[in-house]
């Protein structure tokens, strides 16, 4: 890679060990992807849940964080993806004191870099959305695909170490979705029927994702007569990134960039209502005893929290079923202030702050609580949890709530 004088100084350790480690890591990744040079980023979003970090990852953070303050301080605003522990509710979820202690060590280390603990994967809805053409280093696949597609910003999937490295150097290797050539469409789909609610938007993301199946594919989705809302594209993008590892889609008339195909436009693949119905049916389990209902992945917007409160008003969750709602600290604060939290918790549900279910030791929670059957309106979540030992069902928010009250999958 072509390096500037400042980048060479970082690599030589003249700006301290954290920046030396960071740029060396970035060069290794950049050269793997044939990056010619670096591009400056305006913000970094760091995924660093302790389930992923483990003891070794926390020790690594603590080691870098022990450097003198001028050497360890991030160069661009850096924010965090959801944490693994909400200290207010972790015991109710069956998480342990050891998990909480590791979490606190990670938080202290991240704070030492002057990372802003936003603890959210919906930063594009709640913190500071990037603009079209803005280069960022985002570390949640749902945040990346939303920023790239809906907003026209430019990011690759930046895992925790790479997002931290970008925060420390203020730049990232220029490859993948930082380049015009990578942003051209390669696959084409045409909708015969628009999804009707969020779980169906997730199902559509799952269908397109499975058909694309690669980070380097860029699908175009045609046929929408009406622009969907932000939450719809949030669920669509999160599922597309989860099922397909896709980081960018185009939706003519809706998303930020003009659709340009990489070659001759391929014939569109039709997707209709029967496809969405069949996708949802893969996860159907009517009559099964229901252990846990989760609204998360991505964290809920204020509008989604209000919808959960409306659906639960005047009802009680079945005593054998746990309902968990996860959102960002900012939205939780707003929900508290607007009494949405009180309405949800009056029904027996838990509103968790700054976590996401699958980043919170999902396997250990299942073992501690005897959970097996899970229900959610998040297609991303049902995709992830298979490996964690859950049997997951996907349905609308309203059907999830009705099932939670009944204690069985409806």
């Amino acid at each position, binding site marked *: 890679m072509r390096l500037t004088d400042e980048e060479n100084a970082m690599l030589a350790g003249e700006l301290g060990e954290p920046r030396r480690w960071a740029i060396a890591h970035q060069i290794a990744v950049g050269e793997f992807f044939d990056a010619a040079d670096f591009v400056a980023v305006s913000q970094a979003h760091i995924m660093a849940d302790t389930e*992923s970090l483990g003891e070794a990852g926390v020790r690594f953070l603590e080691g870098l964080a022990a450097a003198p303050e001028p050497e360890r301080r991030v160069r661009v605003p850096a924010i965090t993806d959801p944490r693994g522990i909400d200290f207010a509710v972790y015991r109710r979820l069956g998480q342990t004191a050891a998990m909480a202690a590791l979490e606190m060590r990670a938080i202290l280390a991240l704070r030492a870099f002057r990372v802003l603990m936003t603890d959210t994967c919906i930063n594009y809805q709640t913190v500071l959305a990037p603009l079209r053409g803005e280069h960022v280093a985002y570390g949640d696949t749902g945040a990346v695909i939303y920023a790239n597609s809906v907003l026209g910003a430019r990011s690759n*999937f930046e*895992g925790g170490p790479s997002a931290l490295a970008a925060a420390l150097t203020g730049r990232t290797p220029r490859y993948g979705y930082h380049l015009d050539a990578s942003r051209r469409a390669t696959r084409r789909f045409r909708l015969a029927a628009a999804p009707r609610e969020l779980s169906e938007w997730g199902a559509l993301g799952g269908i397109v994702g499975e058909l694309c199946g690669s980070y380097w594919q860029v699908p175009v989705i045609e046929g929408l007569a009406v622009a969907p809302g932000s939450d719809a594209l949030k669920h669509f993008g999160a599922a597309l990134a989860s099922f397909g590892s896709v980081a960018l889609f185009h939706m003519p008339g809706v998303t930020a960039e003009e659709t340009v195909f990489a070659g001759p436009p391929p014939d569109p693949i039709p997707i209709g209502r029967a496809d969405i119905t069949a996708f949802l049916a893969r996860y159907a389990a009517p009559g099964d005893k229901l252990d846990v209902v989760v609204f998360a992945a991505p964290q809920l917007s204020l509008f989604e929290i209000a919808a959960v409160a409306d659906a639960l008003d005047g009802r009680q969750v079945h005593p054998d079923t746990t309902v968990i709602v996860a959102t960002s600290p900012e939205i939780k604060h707003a929900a508290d202030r607007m009494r949405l939290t009180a309405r949800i918790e009056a029904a027996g549900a838990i509103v968790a702050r700054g976590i996401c279910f699958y980043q919170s030791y999902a396997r250990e929670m299942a073992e501690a609580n005897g959970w097996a059957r899970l229900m959610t309106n998040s297609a991303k979540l049902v995709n992830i949890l*298979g*490996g964690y030992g859950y049997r997951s069902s996907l349905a609308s928010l309203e059907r999830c709530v009705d099932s939670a009250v009944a204690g069985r999958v409806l």
Partner: protein
Amino acid sequence: MPVVLRCHPGIGPAVSGTALVAADNFSARYDLDRSRGIFSRPSHQLAGASYVDRILVLDGAKGGVATAWMLHDMAARQIVPRALIFNRVNPILAQGAAFAGVALVDRFAGDVTQLFHTGDQLRIDPAAGTVEILNRDT
């Protein structure tokens, strides 16, 4: 002479080991039980198989960013694959391999899930961009 296949220059140290091959994708979060060292996702072609110390040969990466941290933790606990061979990876696998010091190569002339067989003895040189199949002669 062993068979030598060329690929894009990769990441990590030169290593030798035994291949575990499947025409499937990979994510440390989605697919693994990282305490037992096995593939735990029931629908994965390698479900129930141990990945520890194997050279994993798979098609591509799944969504999710967790693998970037998890390979490092798995290496520290010595329940990590010895190396990774893919058709084409996403940035997360490359970042994770670079952070953990795990050998990774991709971008071969053919489909790696056909070129290599489970049980093959392989020697990977990421810097040179080569993989030798030691148990097969040209």
